[in-house]
């Protein structure tokens, strides 16, 4: 009976350091003279990067079985559909 794979303790510290670095980048980026669109891409790009780090390592989805990953992804699929259908209406109105 092999031990279940999981992140090393040092990996957890590295992920935390990366998350804090990303937070600092977000805070600095918010003060840079970029356009409104570029600001959003920058800020939400970093949020997505942080989420990937938290979900894959802190929440251990990277080490989970396929069925657990499928359940973890299901909510995102429905959320994506919600946004896709809503904005395909709102953004195409004359």
């Amino acid at each position: 009976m092999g031990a279940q794979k999981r992140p090393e303790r040092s990996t957890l510290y590295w992920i935390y350091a990366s998350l804090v670095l990303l937070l600092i980048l977000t805070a600095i980026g918010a003060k840079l003279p970029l356009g409104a669109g570029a600001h959003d891409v920058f800020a939400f790009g970093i949020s997505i990067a942080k989420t990937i780090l938290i979900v894959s390592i802190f929440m251990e989805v990277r080490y989970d079985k396929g069925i657990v990953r499928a359940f973890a992804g299901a909510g995102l699929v429905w959320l994506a559909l919600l946004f896709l259908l809503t904005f395909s209406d709102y953004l195409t109105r004359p």
Partner: protein
Amino acid sequence: MPRESASHIPEQFESRAQQEEADALGIWTFLSTEILFFGGLILSYSVYRVSYHAGFAEASQHLYFWIGTINTFILLTSSLCMALAVHSIHDGDVAKLRRYLVLTFIFGAAFLGLKLCEYYLDYREHLVPSVNFDPSHFLHPHAAELFLFLYFAMTGLHAIHMTLGLSALTYLYFRARRGDFSQEYHSPVKVVGLYWHFVDIVWVFLYPMLYLINN
């Protein structure tokens, strides 16, 4: 009455591994519904932000950027502590589990405390819709009020989730002290950990949505 512990597997499960997988599927199903719960609010915010960008950006400038940033840091740190708590009990170290649960609780409580201070400052600045909102502070008062309504709704819902998370951490701590968790059995720690990280992720998105809208 047998309580769940290292030596007892509930009769509906064939093995500890099967029980853990069922627990993981259960909490992820719950978190999927939570994604849609917050998703509805985030969608409303997104639609209105597209429609009233200038008003949203103006109202966002009235929020306390540094409090939001420090709170994000605090929450990320609490997530590390929670991950370390799960890691510790994987190794069978109950003393470390208890220590990290306490640290997670402290950071979570610090987040809520700072959030309450921020709400008080918002109140003093007349930024609370339906309570003391002062439209004379804004060039786009209707859009600003809508933004602030969404700000209080989303951060308030998040704070309720944080409070439930703190209760769950307290529950885990006392169970850990009673000796319920071990290297073989620690599913509740993992389940609460997943919930805690999820609440952290929600804030990771609320932070740029509310504090970082730039003109």
